[in-house]
């Protein structure tokens, strides 16, 4: 596909979709009903998860199938806090992020030792184990029935509880914008260069003296923390947590979102997540029961027709050159 150079320049590539997304996020709620608004909130929470996947799959060259696990950990942390009367939103976000980071630090020790398909499989297994554990640990999680009775949160201590879909949306949007801004800022710093270099040519990084495994573990922990943040938001939106939130299909969906959005673009990952929620919930009206089929078709189309993703940022990892002969 030939694209004019102007359209690929940085301001256009990021500015146009960014501005469009901002306008949509600010204006759309006023014309949507409660259901539509809560779908948007859900898309944002899933979008945070998608960004965490893009940090690993896009930036670090670690295609993960298990990011729904720290997402689940974050969501349960928020759920447990709510049912125990800790309903301050910011505090839930902090704790959910922290617990998910600890979880990722531990699972990362196993996952980071593997590469490629083995990494995919290991993260998949870790994800499924987490889902199973959540289903079994009834006293904490309510088992496979899920966790009910999660009360509305107050964003900050002393503020009123968020009672409407609309107010929850604004809270989720604010939190998402803040966390994505932080991610953006970090990825555009020398830290992002380190990750990209590891992805470009890991062996060369080691030869140059970089402790690649440590970098990737740290990226894994950071991505886990971010997924946990998204999980807390999901709990806030749904007022319900169940093991399904961490299911394989959720992980796969989010990887799809990242592929659709362009793997190294946080913005693209958000857009991809939006697209997925839209497809899943709106297109299943005219095509009832065919949601997964539609998503599968989208995946195939995305990989073949849009290697650069929706946001026009390269998805396919550049071909490796050289290596010790």
């Amino acid at each position, binding site marked *: 596909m030939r694209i004019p150079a102007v359209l690929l320049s940085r301001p256009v590539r990021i500015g146009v979709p960014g501005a469009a997304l901002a306008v949509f996020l600010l204006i759309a709620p006023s014309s949507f009903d409660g259901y539509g608004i809560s779908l948007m909130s859900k898309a944002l929470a899933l979008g945070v998860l998608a960004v965490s996947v893009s940090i690993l799959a896009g930036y670090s060259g670690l295609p993960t199938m298990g990011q729904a696990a720290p997402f689940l950990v974050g969501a349960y942390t928020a759920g447990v806090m709510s049912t125990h009367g800790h309903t301050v939103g910011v505090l839930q976000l902090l704790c959910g992020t922290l617990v998910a980071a600890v979880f990722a630090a531990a699972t990362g020790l196993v996952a980071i030792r593997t590469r490629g398909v083995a990494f995919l499989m290991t993260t998949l297994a870790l994800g499924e184990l987490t889902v199973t554990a959540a289903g079994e640990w009834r006293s904490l999680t309510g088992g496979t029935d899920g966790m009910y009775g999660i009360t509305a949160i107050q964003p900050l201590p002393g503020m009123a509880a968020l009672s409407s879909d609309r107010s929850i949306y604004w809270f989720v949007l604010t939190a998402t914008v803040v966390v994505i801004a932080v991610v953006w800022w970090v990825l555009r*710093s*020398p*830290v992002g*260069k*380190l990750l*990209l*270099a590891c*992805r*470009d*040519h890991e*062996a*060369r*990084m*080691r*030869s*140059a*003296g*970089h*402790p*690649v495994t440590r970098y990737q573990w740290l990226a894994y922990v950071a991505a886990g923390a971010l997924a946990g943040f998204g999980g807390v938001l999901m709990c806030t939106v749904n007022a319900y947590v169940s093991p399904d939130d961490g299911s394989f299909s959720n992980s796969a969906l989010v990887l799809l979102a990242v592929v659709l959005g362009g793997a190294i673009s946080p913005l693209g990952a958000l857009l991809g997540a939006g697209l997925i929620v839209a497809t899943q919930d709106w297109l299943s009206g005219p095509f009832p029961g065919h949601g997964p089929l539609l998503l599968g078709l989208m995946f195939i189309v995305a990989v073949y027709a849009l290697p650069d993703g929706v946001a026009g940022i390269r998805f396919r990892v*550049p071909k490796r*050159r*050289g*290596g*010790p*002969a």
Partner: protein
Amino acid sequence: MTDVSSVSANVSPGSADASSVSANMSSVSANMIEVSGLTKAFSGGTLAVGGLDLTFEAGRRHAVIGPNGAGKTTLLNLIAGELRPTAGRIRYNGRDVTRTSRVKRSRLGIARTFQQPTVWSTLSVADNIALAAWPHSKVRGKWRRGRYRTLSEYCERYLETAGITALADRPAGALAHGERRMLDIGMALAAEPRVLLLDEPAAGLTDQGVERLLTAMRALPQEVTVIVVEHDFAFVSAVADTVTVLQDGKLLATGTPTEIAADAAVRTAYLGESGVVPDAVEEVV
């Protein structure tokens, strides 16, 4: 022979562990790299390196030559820690590094270039150099933008040495082969190594590129130990003071470039491969 005490005094300011270096140097022989019984057999059954005993003295310019498949690249890979030997030991500066990872060896001061120049293709040329210098630089907190800029400014000298200043902002993946070769060399220099391993650095370079490479190699601090694998005997005699000839993973001969050029066994080894190289050897005699 370099005076050992001057080595510790001259360790570059960017070197990661100058203090441990000077501590080691006082007690150590002049052999910077020493391999004994070094053997590498690949799983296919190829014996790429078969029981080599070699020493590379500190502060000298060593060349390793030999026909294709002689095991030259494998030897560099073993010294750099890219490969684990099947048998034998490797000592670096008096210390056994046979089981030391390549990351650690790099941090101890062994840098290398690759026969196929190897760079980080999505990053700019300047970033490639800065990231290559990163683990060896004393600048603290390089993950911060300001500090990274300090590092990048310091690294401009390596862009200059490699003659790629004009390409600084290009993505490394967009470079031509010769440019990528010079970048690979610049990256190795940016590590401010004590041992520099160069795998066919002149291959694919223009005459101007070769000139620049020669200048860069002559400008290296005297205490740096260089091991260069190269086919072009004219280049070898221009830079090296000792030449080691490998054939089928075994040591065939070692000596000064003039001695090697006159060696009958070496001529036979090269003649066995092609008629081109002996001409180059003859020119030197």
